């Protein structure tokens, strides 16, 4: 229905404040206001005169916002600083600086250039990332808003131009450009609706209300011409929920609270426009004061890598030390003997500078130490960090572009917000998951109801389906599935109700039609939702505070009671007139709204219907509602209770609906008291209101109950099953109540029937009695004891059953958790929890979620992954090693604080099992390989130096030395990090236990790292000594020429390039054209470089001049040596790998065998392999099937032994 009924602009100037009885209290001068003007409360805003001298003196910051890490000026120094904070880079900087001194064994430019290159690449990467933020800033700062120009006109201006004191006009669905003081709105009582999704992630609308003093006078643009007001308020701070200030208007002082403050980055909704005065701008705004950098997380592998680097430093220093001592001794031998003779006279030791002076051999040795440290810098891969960064960025690109993690419905691909943690995804031991919105959709669907003692609704819930499966009726489930699937027409969001007795107006024919009418009317009237009518189609949609509420209004609409308009004091809806069978409009006068809160657990409205009757319509939780029924209102109580219990078992959220007629006198009395209480300023105001409403909401007449399903997301049980097979433990941390949590646990196979449930709560009679008595200390004492006792019992149960196949589940509620998380008991709690297959914490607060996460993380030392979608999960996400945000309906807060965002829980499977595993195996192989190749290279440098009496003379040309890491060996290892797949994604899915490689960190264990290093060492020994021996007498070509330093160096270097790249060929298991290009390309590049560099003229190439074309290439012995060395050096690894592959295969190698032998397509075989891999205590439906197989005794004895060994 299009607007215009009420005429002109005034239509929407409604007085809505009575919907919000509790929230919209007027602020009053409290003690806070006395601080105005004092320290911390010094801000003065001259409204409407931003350019006055008084304002300018204050000189508040502009509205320009910068989220970039760097400015153009600070980019160079700051990013350089960032780079050199890394210890390895710093080391290279120091060696680079030292290379400018005469200490250097090589030319300075050859040392500095690769360092510069590496740093430049890192800086370019930083720059590109920052540029993305910069573009976002530009977009935000250039948004436009209407600003008062001082003459009663508003004109468009950019956000960044805003100044403190400006008056702005914000239109519907626009963002607020700064923190504004609400002056007036399109509604009469200057209410406006605000969506704060960007602040706290909540999608529901919040109400703000301006002061009476401002709203009464300011309605039009032109009203602002004469406005003069001064705001004195607090200084900028990060508290989103308080604001203290005073408005000086026309000689009067008015108190201001957060209720008048519109925060930047929140959005104006359901309100045509508002006027506001700018109070805080730019970086002073609360949202920006709030934005702290997320804690930067580093992956386990990187931390271990740092250890390896330190280890390498130690090796370097040790070698330098040994070298220095030998050098010192040998130099000392050179000192002049009797008669002025020296031993190695050709070195002129008697006329040496300080570096070689035999008279000062100790000093020379110390100086040599520095030279050696520079020379051995090739042990530490200079390009390691930058290569890993490049690889990780590319891996993130793969994650972002994965079509299988793209959610069509919301158009959201996966988004890796940080690339730091890719490999950590492959090592997750425990997943801590939120429930609502993560496991479930958080889109409530009206699915069942019970009216007048009759249950309606034929829909089958996910939980019911799984319960049916639990009782073993697979065929039956199949049938039921068809019923659900067989839906006609497009699905309506929030509505999944199927019952021909009620639908399409058929309810009229039911026996209790009158009750049903009341029931549906209540659904249409008793709520705080706001309708929005699509002008074109006339379709009505709703903005509601919670998805439950939206589901009710939608259900009412679908059943023929269409709520379409909310006015100042009325609610209009269309319904079928029972008598005429026509659609009629009805308008109920809305008198009061008694709001929902978690203490009351109910919500009511008081309305006057068209006949003038006063009605109290109420809906609420069963435990509060049943006790409020009147004696004559309990007609359907028994039946309804029965249905409600059934619904709860099916995992549904239930509400009881009831009403009563209110006596006119009673209402007058109530109204008076209620208004009084609302306007009171005493501290017990809340309890006063509670008391008054409590008296009103009595003697209700029961209508029925509703059941709303919070649906499991698609594929959640399958995903959990896979993750469980992968050996990942899954904990559910939810704010829901225990019953719901347990039901969902069953639905997604986290719990199964034969599991022993260890339930820890404080619902014991003893404690309840104490609670009644209200002695705080006693309660606490008793609670603590009770929790500890329950934990001990649970532990005893688990130890008692060790060796059997029994699985346990731990379910603990929030109150008990408080005690279990105390320092003295948390160890015990963790012990108990890790002994259980599944853990469910219900009724837990955001803080507790974070605490549990921390406990698991620090207690087990394993990698934890937090996944959630709401603002309440932020703590958990930041605490966990990896935070995964679900970009669902609950806003962006979780996503903003997550490391990786995905659209659906089920994508976790691919993210972990495929991407996680790949990234883990890639990065760990990559790092191992890096150290391998650098040790190979570094050891040859060291060995050669030993033959020069440790004088720090390398065998290679300076540029050979410095380009090794950058050119001849870096691209293949990057390709390894980006492309290698030990096992294809299909097999990652088929054999989830492969994931354990990461959890147990088999691919980056010290054994493997040291193994690779050892491989590097023997390779280097082989290369060096074979080359040396083969040129022993150094007649190496048919022309009788002898081999000099440059020829030995060139030969060794060629061998290294070959061996290191061929080693890569042996190490990778996935050969695409990319690998071919980079590996053969790197080798070719070496020869090309030799030729190009050798042709550059002797002043530049020094001893490498024409070394390849003139000396190396024509000599058959060079080629024969190369061929021999490259095969010989790889034989040890090849033998090792052949034996390992065949006789001691790792997990991924086993799967490679299975693939190779073609068994992957044999379902029976795959199943058999998988059976072996399942641990009896895991969860998921496969485990459930395995358990039933086990019970039937078909299990092989040998296998049983395996399991027991667990």
């Amino acid at each position: 229905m299009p607007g215009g009924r009420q005429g002109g602009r005034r239509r929407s100037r409604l007085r809505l404040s009575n919907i919000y009885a509790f929230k919209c209290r007027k602020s009053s001068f409290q003690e806070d206001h006395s601080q105005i003007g004092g320290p911390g409360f010094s801000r003065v805003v001259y409204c409407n005169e931003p350019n006055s001298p008084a304002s300018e003196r204050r000189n508040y910051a502009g509205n320009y916002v910068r989220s970039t890490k760097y400015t153009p000026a600070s980019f160079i120094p700051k990013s350089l600083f960032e780079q050199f904070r890394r210890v390895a880079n710093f080391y290279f900087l120091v060696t680079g600086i030292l290379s400018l001194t005469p200490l250097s064994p090589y030319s300075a430019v050859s040392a500095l250039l690769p360092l510069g290159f590496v740093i430049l690449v890192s800086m370019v990467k930083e720059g590109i990332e920052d540029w993305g933020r910069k573009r976002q800033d530009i977009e935000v700062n250039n948004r436009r808003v209407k600003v008062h120009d001082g003459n009663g006109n508003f004109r468009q201006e950019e956000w960044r131009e805003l100044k403190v004191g400006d008056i702005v006009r914000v239109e519907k669905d626009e963002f607020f450009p700064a923190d504004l003081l609400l002056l007036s709105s399109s509604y009469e009582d200057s209410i406006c609706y605000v969506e704060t999704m960007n602040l706290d992630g909540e999608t529901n609308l919040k109400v703000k209300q301006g002061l009476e003093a401002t709203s009464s006078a300011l309605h039009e643009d032109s009203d602002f011409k004469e406005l003069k007001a001064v705001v004195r308020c607090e200084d900028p701070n990060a508290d989103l929920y308080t604001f203290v200030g005073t408005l000086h208007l026309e000689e009067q002082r008015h108190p201001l609270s957060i209720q008048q403050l519109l925060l930047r980055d929140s959005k104006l909704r359901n309100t045509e426009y508002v006027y506001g005065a700018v109070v805080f701008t730019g970086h002073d705004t609360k949202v920006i004061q709030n934005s702290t950098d997320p804690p930067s997380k580093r992956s386990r592998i990187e931390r271990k890598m740092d250890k390896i680097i330190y280890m390498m430093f130690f090796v370097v220093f040790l070698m330098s030390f040994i070298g220095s001592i030998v050098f010192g001794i040998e130099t000392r031998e050179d000192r002049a003997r009797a008669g002025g003779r020296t031993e190695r006279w050709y070195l002129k030791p008697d006329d040496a500078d300080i570096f070689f002076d035999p008279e000062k051999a100790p000093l020379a040795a110390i100086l040599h130490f520095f030279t050696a440290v520079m020379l051995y810098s090739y042990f530490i891969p200079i390009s390691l960090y930058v290569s890993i960064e490049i690889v990780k960025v590319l891996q993130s690109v793969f994650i972002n572009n994965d079509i299988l993690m793209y959610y069509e419905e919301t158009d959201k691909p996966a988004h890796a917000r940080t690339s730091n943690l890719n490999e950590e995804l492959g090592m997750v031991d425990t997943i801590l998951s939120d429930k609502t919105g993560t496991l479930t959709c958080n889109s409530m669907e009206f699915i069942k109801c019970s009216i007048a003692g009759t249950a309606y609704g034929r829909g089958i819930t996910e939980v019911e389906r799984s319960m049916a499966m639990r009782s073993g009726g697979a065929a039956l489930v199949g049938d039921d599935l068809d019923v659900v699937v067989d839906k006609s027409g497009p699905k309506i969001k929030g509505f999944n109700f199927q019952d021909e007795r009620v639908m399409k107006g058929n309810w009229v024919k039911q026996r209790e039609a009158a009750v049903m009418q009341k029931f549906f009317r209540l659904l249409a009237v008793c709520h705080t939702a706001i309708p929005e009518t699509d002008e074109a189609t006339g379709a009505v949609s709703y903005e509601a505070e919670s998805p439950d509420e939206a589901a009710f209004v939608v259900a009412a609409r679908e059943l023929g009671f269409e709520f379409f308009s909310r006015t100042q004091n009325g609610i209009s809806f269309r319904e079928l007139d029972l008598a005429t069978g026509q659609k009629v409009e009805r308008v109920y006068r809305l008198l009061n709204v008694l709001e929902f809160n978690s203490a009351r657990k109910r919500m009511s409205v008081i309305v006057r219907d068209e006949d003038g009757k006063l009605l109290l319509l109420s809906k609420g939780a069963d435990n509060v509602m049943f006790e409020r029924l009147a004696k004559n209102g309990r007609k359907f109580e028994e039946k309804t209770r029965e249905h409600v219990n059934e619904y709860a078992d099916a995992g549904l959220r239930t509400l009881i609906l009831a009403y009563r007629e209110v006596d006119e006198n009673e209402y007058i009395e109530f109204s008076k008291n209620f208004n009084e209480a609302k306007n009171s300023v005493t501290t017990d105001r809340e309890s006063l209101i509670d008391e008054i409403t409590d008296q009103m909401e009595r003697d209700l007449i029961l209508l029925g109950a509703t059941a709303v399903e919070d649906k499991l997301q698609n594929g959640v049980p399958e995903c959990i099953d896979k993750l469980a097979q992968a050996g990942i433990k899954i904990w559910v941390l939810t704010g829901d109540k225990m019953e719901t949590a347990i039901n969902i646990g069953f639905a997604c196979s986290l719990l199964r029937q034969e599991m022993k449930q260890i339930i820890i709560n404080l619902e014991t009679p003893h404690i309840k009695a104490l609670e009644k008595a209200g002695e705080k200390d006693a309660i606490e004492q008793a609670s603590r004891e009770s929790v500890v006792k329950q934990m001990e019992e649970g532990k005893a149960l688990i130890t008692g059953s060790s060796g059997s196949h029994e699985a346990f589940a731990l379910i603990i509620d929030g109150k008990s958790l408080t005690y279990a998380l105390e320092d003295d008991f948390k160890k015990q709690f963790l012990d108990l929890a890790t002994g259980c297959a599944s853990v469910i914490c219900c009724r837990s607060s955001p803080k507790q979620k974070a605490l549990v996460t921390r406990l698991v993380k620090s207690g087990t030392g394993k990698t934890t992954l937090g996944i959630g979608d709401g603002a309440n999960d932020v703590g958990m996400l930041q605490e966990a090693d990896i935070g995964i945000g679900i970009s669902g309906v609950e806003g962006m807060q979780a996503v903003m604080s997550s490391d990786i965002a995905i659209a659906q829980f089920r994508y976790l499977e691919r993210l972990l099992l495929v991407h996680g595993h790949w990234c883990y195996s890639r990065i760990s192989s990559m790092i191992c390989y890096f150290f391998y190749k650098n040790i190979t290279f570094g050891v040859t440098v060291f060995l050669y130096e030993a033959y020069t009496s440790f004088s720090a003379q390398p065998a290679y040309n300076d540029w050979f030395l410095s380009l090794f890491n950058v050119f001849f060996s870096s691209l293949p290892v990057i390709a390894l990090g980006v492309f290698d797949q030990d096992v294809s994604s299909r097999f990652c899915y088929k054999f989830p236990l492969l994931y354990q490689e990461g959890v147990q960190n088999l691919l980056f264990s010290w054994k493997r790292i040291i193994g690779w290093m050892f491989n590097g060492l023997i390779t280097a020994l082989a290369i060096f000594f074979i080359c040396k021996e083969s040129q022993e007498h150094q007649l190496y070509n048919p022309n009788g020429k002898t081999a000099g330093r440059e020829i030995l160096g060139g030969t060794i270097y060629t061998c290294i390039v070959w061996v290191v790249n061929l080693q890569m060929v042996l190490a990778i298991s996935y050969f695409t054209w990319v690998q071919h290009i980079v590996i053969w390309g790197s080798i070719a590049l070496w020869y090309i470089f030799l030729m190009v560099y050798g042709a550059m003229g002797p002043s530049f190439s020094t001893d490498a001049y024409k070394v390849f074309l003139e000396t190396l290439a024509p000599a058959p012995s060079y080629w024969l040596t190369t061929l021999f060395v490259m095969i010989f050096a790889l034989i040890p690894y090849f033998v090792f790998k052949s034996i390992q592959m065949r006789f001691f295969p790792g997990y991924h190698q086993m799967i490679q065998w299975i693939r190779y032998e073609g068994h992957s397509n044999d379902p029976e075989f795959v199943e058999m392999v998988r059976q072996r891999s399942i641990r009896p205590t895991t969860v998921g439906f496969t485990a459930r099937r395995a358990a039933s197989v086990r019970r039937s005794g078909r299990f092989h004895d040998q296998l049983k032994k395996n399991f027991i060994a667990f």
Partner: protein
Amino acid sequence: MSSNMASSSAGSGDSSAARKNSKRPKCIDYSSALLSLTLLDSKFTQQELPACKPILTPGWVISTFLIVSVIFIPLGVISLFASQDVVEIVDRYDNDCIPAPARTNKVAFIQGAAPKSCNRTLTVTKRMKQPIYVYYQLENFYQNHRRYVKSRSDSQLRSPKFENQISACKPEDDAGGKPIVPCGLIAWSLFNDTYTLSRNNTPLAVNKKGIAWKSDKEHKFGNKVFPKNFQKGNLTGGATLNPDIPLSEQEDLIVWMRTAALPTFRKLYGKIETDLENGDTIQVTLQNNYNTYSFSGKKKLVLSTTSWLGGKNDFLGIAYLTVGGICFFLALAFTIMYLVKPRRLGDPSYLSWNRNPGGGR
């Protein structure tokens, strides 16, 4: 299989989607400069490039070893033959060329003014075809010492323009304020023993041309650079140079200046361009000038022919043969291992996953 459900259901349905303006991962995110370089097609972004996935099956392992041994053994034989073809005469003379009375203080003798002439006789045991290369071999001489290697001025050697670039040459940089050409320790310590050969009392010509690398002669040592102030310092090192011959023609110097890689090295002295017959005796008259005694370095005179592979060095041939043999043995060993411990194709009993109790339970 239930396990396939998730993957297949996730895969289907996605392909037929409206693509305009959606964030659906397509091919390339061109907006990012880093990526457009590498990303080519969707097979690429979905990581499904066609690939070869080799694994080390028994067939591969055994045939690799066999192939290596089949290639290596013949190569070893050929190399060994080549090395065996080479005839080499080595004569150590550093000790014998000091008169017996002076042997208690060799250093004093070599630095003294006594005549250093010395006669040696060599016997040819096998026919040597020309060219026969004459080398001197020094041992325990660290031509690769950093101080030594750096002590030269390449630019000075190349062109008279850079005569004064002597900073690297200390302490042999100048003599009485005038730059030394060639400067530095390497040139200063130039080897100065000389050999005069004769066969059956007829002089045997030793050609000292063409012993240096062409690139050295043409590009590193200038033909307009003449020795100056050489060996004029307070201490004479090794040989002197004829100041009338440009450096590019001073091949002894050029050979010497290419520093050796290891403390034991040979350097080419000259070529004999006539065949030597089996049983020939060769008289060598040498001037034993060079001081290797202070650092106990040996001096040897070497006459050698060459093969296509270079000088006499059995190492490569033996190494090839050995490794070829080892590979053959490994091929056998692996065959036996695979036979003794056979694994029925696909027998999962080898695939015991649970070796490693996970999760530390």
